[in-house]
């Protein structure tokens, strides 16, 4: 299955030299999953690789997407926002609140250190599908786009997996007046 996609960000990120680009082969080679490199007219380097993406299947309500984000460049990369035709999305993180771990929107986005990786995983940072327009069925393949600081974008496809974990409580905080609070399935 083609689940990993090396995608190319546009100029602002690609400025970080071919040396950073060279390290991308290490990152992608270590993953045995196939990596497809998409090129776009404005792109000159693969800045961010999305490895092993998947979504928690959900009949109803909110759900989450996970992956390993690999920064192939010599400069930090920030994921500012994410979008999907399947659902409005938010970048979420887990935090301790009143003695319990709850999730809340990630201020400032996900920062992936130069040459580093950033795990989006159950119990940690993740992409939250706030209101899927249809049930996310096991085996469905959902499209996502990450928007990077500086204007680049990264597309990937994630498969939906039956998964019992990741039942974190959601604390939308003050910045999220419209979202419905409470545990999600």
């Amino acid at each position, binding site marked *: 299955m*083609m689940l990993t996609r090396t995608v190319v960000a546009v100029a602002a990120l690609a400025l970080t030299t071919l040396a950073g680009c060279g390290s991308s082969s290490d990152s992608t080679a270590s993953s045995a999953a196939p990596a497809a490199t998409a090129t776009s007219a404005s792109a000159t380097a693969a800045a961010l690789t999305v490895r092993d993406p998947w979504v928690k299947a959900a009949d109803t309500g909110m759900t989450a997407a996970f992956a390993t984000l690999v920064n192939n460049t010599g400069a930090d990369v920030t994921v500012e926002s994410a979008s999907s035709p399947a659902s409005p999305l938010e970048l979420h993180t887990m935090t301790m609140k009143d003695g319990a771990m709850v999730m809340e929107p990630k201020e400032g986005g996900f920062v992936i250190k130069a040459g580093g990786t950033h795990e989006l995983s159950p119990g940690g940072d993740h992409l939250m599908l706030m209101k899927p327009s249809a049930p996310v069925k096991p085996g469905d*393949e959902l499209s996502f786009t990450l928007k990077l600081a500086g204007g680049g974008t990264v597309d990937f496809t994630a498969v939906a997996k039956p998964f019992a974990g990741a039942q974190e409580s959601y604390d939308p905080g003050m910045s999220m007046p419209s979202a419905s609070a409470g545990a999600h399935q």
Partner: protein
Amino acid sequence: MAGLGSAAAAGYLSATPAESAPATVPVADFQDIGTGILPFYGDRQSGITDEPPAHGSFVALTLAKGTDRAALGRLMRLLTDDAARLTRGEPALGDTDAELAVHPARLTVTFGFGPGLYRAAGLKSPVADLPAFTIDRLEDRWSGGDLVMQICSDDSLTVSHTQRMLIKDARPFGAIRWVQRGFRRSAGVHKAGFTQRNVFGQLDGTANPKDAAMETVVWNADHSTQLVVRRVRTDIETWDLLSVGDKENSTGRRMESGAPLTGTAEHDEPDFTKTDSTGLPVMPNFSHVTRAHVTDPALKILRRPFNYDEAPDAQGRPDSGLVFASYQADIVRQYLPIQRRLAEKDLLNEWTTPIGSAVFAIPPGCTEGGWIGERVLA
């Protein structure tokens, strides 16, 4: 016992009883079996003609109502991805026990489609349930199945973890119908190519085709094949009553060597024309080997069975037997004639009872990026 423990820890085990001077034999050097990897992707599925490992588990599912062709495609994409990752020693996506995935030990996952899967997909099935045989005492709990996953590895914990991950992805699409787990000799006990012994002590699989002959027996031109799974209960209590000579007459082979009664070595061809001093055939005409014998090599089957041995009952009577599995290009052409002859007459039937039966078409393998069954379901 502390002495034995420390001796073992030092790499030596006592090979003689405690009363004599302990002669020690070195424990075999550590052999790395855990990292063994068999390819998942390819024209053909793995787990069929490769040397069977020590442990096997067959998991059969009954598809949930409404699992249509599109849903089957989603199911097989998920399962293919799990199998591809786990067989190369990587965790499945969303693997909650990733540390259990690192020792594949020649792990294979082989998928088979039962007649019910084709019905669900609106397709004509290449396989049909076997006809009833008079010797059968089939139980529903060991029979049938729309989808089978054969999970094999030299490590039992790896089989267990793989089975757990596959079932987690499969169960939105169906229910577990049966699971049959079995075992053979462990890796390192025999050289590769040795014939395994079953719980009766018999060498089991001597007549299996090899190399080029195996190609013809197993594979269709499109790299598909067909699988029969039969659960055969062995009555070891009554088998125990037999003399060695009687046991050998029932099969037509020597218990120790596996040689036919007309020969001296396991792979000697049995001579069905040879008679003894009383004029009776040396290979009894009711013996298992005589009845199962196939002259045309193309009509053979590839036996790939695993032993089972569940908990005995309160009286200590075993619940054991064979998870018989055979691969052949065409069940009707190859398996059925043999099974008909055995059902009609085979002395071994006295001590064996088929209690489960299932058939599956094994679709071709797939390349990276593809999925098992895509040529059937896509």
